[in-house]
């Protein structure tokens, strides 16, 4: 079109365009001297037009690389074009790297010979920088989005004609989404929710409806939900930044939920245990008590302080338990209201826990009490006729003394022995019943031990007759603290045993000595002795050594004597034991605390 206009007009228009464009334009001869530049070029170069014209481009802006390009264009006659080519002004390095879109077009004469170059350039430094920072932040966001642990999805809601949400379409998901759900990006984007999860809508949660509200109102929601198609629990946040669209971020919490479930399940064991379960810290303060504890306290009108459940000496018990290694326990009886409990107190050292299980023994206690009463009454009632039988027998012997024939005298004696045996049996049964019920109560009196031994020895001597001489030689001036009846019982038992198990011998020796705050009393016989293997069992209940029928003597019993004796000695805080050699005899000894 321009060609048709007159030459002058065309040049004017071109000059006008050249002057008014933002693009920097320069016309150079084939040696790269400026022939013509526009204002934009002058401004961009930092020189006045007059300073540029006639000057060589590379004198003003030396750059070997660019010079080569210029030379190549000139020599080949082919134009070049660059986008955002970096350039550092050699004379103005403070401007930093600048970026330029530029082209260089050879200007040829009619013979197609290059006579000059048209140089057009636009600085794009600012654009370039913006673009780069944008790209950088975009990449940053994308990386963030894709490296999120939480699943992310962006959706478009689909509404029906009435504006009711009926489905939604996946627009974008992140890597975590793929990982959590197992669904790939390619297969999910653009798909409807009902296609992706055909079963999800059948369960008891209206996903589409809930998200429809979010997309409509822009109100953010957060909730925890079981998602049946994946058999997983999720915590989900849904929000909307644009009407009709919504995003979700979600996290798989299945393992947490399962852990909580497991913990609840485990916790239900102590919680709903019908027996009392408590835990206390090392100072003895209750840190846990189950429902049974509070039920018991409520029934006993004791309020809600679980501390009441514990024995008052819990601190000492804990101290003792902590001295032992690993899991250790003690059993302690307590009374709560009118109920009795056996507390099994455990120290779980590894966990640093004192745990207590309380077993209700009220019924057992009642039955025990009835049994104790029964035994007490029974023994009394049994002994009453025995008392008169024994006395009548002794009366008969007195009356017919000298007049009876010897056979009659022998029979009297036999009856007497049997009465004593019966008395022993009744006493032993009563004692064992007490020991088992933990009711063997020991009184503490100061006792002159020499005197007590002499008395008991005298009594036993009378009952065993003159076959054995009971000798008490090694005396001590000691006083002991204890129950005279019970200690007498132990001593009598040991003496009778000594006589019984040494049928061939003619004496039994007693000695007493003081040692480390204790008095040790020994009874020595010269009888059959006891084998090593049997010695341990001696103090067990119902254990009896049967040396043979011949030795089943006058005072044989239920095998309770040593068991009862051991309990009595232990209740006094003493020890009982023996030394024995088969064929040489035995020495039984027991210790009692001195009392001064």
């Amino acid at each position, binding site marked *: 079109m321009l060609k048709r206009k007159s030459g002058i007009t065309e040049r004017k228009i071109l000059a006008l365009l050249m002057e008014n464009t933002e693009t920097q334009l320069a016309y150079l001869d084939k040696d790269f001297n400026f022939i013509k530049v526009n204002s934009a070029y002058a401004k961009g170069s930092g020189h006045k037009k007059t300073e540029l014209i006639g000057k060589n481009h590379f004198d003003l802006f030396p750059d070997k690389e660019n010079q080569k390009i210029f030379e190549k264009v000139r020599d080949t006659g082919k134009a070049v074009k660059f986008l955002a080519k970096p350039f550092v002004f050699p004379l103005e390095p403070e401007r930093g790297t600048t970026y330029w879109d530029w082209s260089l077009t050879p200007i040829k004469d009619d013979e197609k010979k290059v006579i000059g170059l048209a140089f057009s350039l636009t600085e794009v430094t600012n654009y370039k920088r913006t673009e780069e920072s944008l790209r950088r932040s975009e990449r940053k966001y994308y990386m963030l989005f894709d490296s999120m642990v939480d699943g992310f999805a962006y959706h478009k809601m689909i509404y029906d004609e009435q504006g009711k949400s009926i489905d939604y379409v996946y627009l974008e998901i992140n890597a975590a989404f793929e990982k959590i759900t197992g669904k790939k990006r390619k297969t999910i984007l653009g798909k409807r929710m009902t296609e992706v999860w055909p079963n999800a809508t059948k369960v008891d949660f209206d996903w589409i409806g809930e998200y429809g509200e979010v997309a409509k109102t822009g109100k953010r929601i957060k909730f925890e939900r079981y998602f049946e198609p994946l058999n997983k629990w999720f915590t989900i946040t849904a929000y909307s930044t644009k009407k009709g669209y919504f995003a979700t971020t979600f996290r798989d919490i299945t393992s947490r939920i399962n852990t909580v479930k497991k913990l609840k399940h485990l916790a239900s064991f102590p919680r709903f245990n019908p027996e009392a379960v408590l835990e206390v810290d090392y100072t003895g303060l209750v840190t846990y008590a189950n429902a049974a504890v509070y039920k018991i306290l409520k029934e006993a009108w004791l309020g809600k302080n679980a501390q009441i459940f514990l024995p008052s000496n819990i601190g000492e018990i804990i101290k003792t338990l902590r001295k032992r290694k690993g899991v250790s326990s003690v059993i302690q009886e307590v009374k709560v209201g009118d109920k009795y409990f056996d507390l099994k107190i455990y120290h779980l050292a590894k966990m640093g826990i004192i745990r207590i299980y309380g077993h209700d023994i009220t019924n057992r206690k009642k039955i025990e009490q009835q049994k104790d009463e029964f035994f*007490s009454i029974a*023994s*009394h009632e049994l*002994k*009453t*006729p*025995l*008392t*008169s*039988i*024994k*006395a*009548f027998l*002794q*009366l008969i012997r*007195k*009356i017919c003394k000298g007049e009876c024939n010897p056979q009659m005298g022998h029979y009297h004696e036999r009856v007497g022995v049997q*009465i004593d045996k019966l*008395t022993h049996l009744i*006493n032993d049964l*009563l*004692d064992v019943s007490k020991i088992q019920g933990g009711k063997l*109560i020991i*009184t503490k009196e100061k006792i002159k031990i020499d005197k007590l031994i002499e008395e008991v020895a005298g*009594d036993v001597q*009378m009952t065993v007759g003159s076959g054995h001489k009971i000798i008490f030689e090694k005396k001590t001036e000691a006083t002991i603290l204890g129950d005279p*009846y*019970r200690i007498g*019982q132990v001593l009598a038992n040991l003496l009778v045993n000594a006589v019984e198990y040494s049928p061939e011998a003619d004496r039994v020796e007693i000695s007493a000595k003081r040692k480390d705050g204790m008095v040790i009393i020994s009874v020595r016989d010269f009888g059959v002795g006891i084998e090593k293997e049997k010695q341990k069992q001696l103090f067990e209940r119902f254990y009896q050594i049967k040396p043979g029928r011949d030795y089943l003597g006058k005072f044989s019993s239920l095998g309770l004597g040593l068991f009862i004796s051991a309990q009595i000695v232990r209740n006094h805080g003493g020890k009982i034991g023996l030394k024995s050699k088969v064929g040489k005899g035995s020495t039984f000894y027991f210790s009692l605390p001195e009392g001064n």
Partner: protein
Amino acid sequence: MNKKILIVDDDEAILEVLSAITEMADYTVQTATSGEGALAIFKNELPDLIVLDMLLPGISGKQVCEILKKDLKTKKIPVVMISANLKDEDFRREPWAEEFLEKPLDMDKYLKVIARELARAEVTA
């Protein structure tokens, strides 16, 4: 003059045999079958010694002993307690009594104790 001994027990057989044995040892015997009966006897005349069963219906032997020992007139009379349940903590040593014997009694020991307590009472009197 023979010493007077009061025997208190609620069991007739025991009472009979103890009386016989005690009389054979040349003591004069009086009997009672209850604590109330025993205390009634004390109103008329004082025995020299009392053999007292611990467990009696009504006023128990323990209580009878306590009453006697608190009374100036009777406190010096020796009391020999007899019981089938001496080892039982409920029948623990009554601090007032002079002696305790466990049932069934050994008659030799019984007579020895009576003689000893009577002699001791005479010395202190």
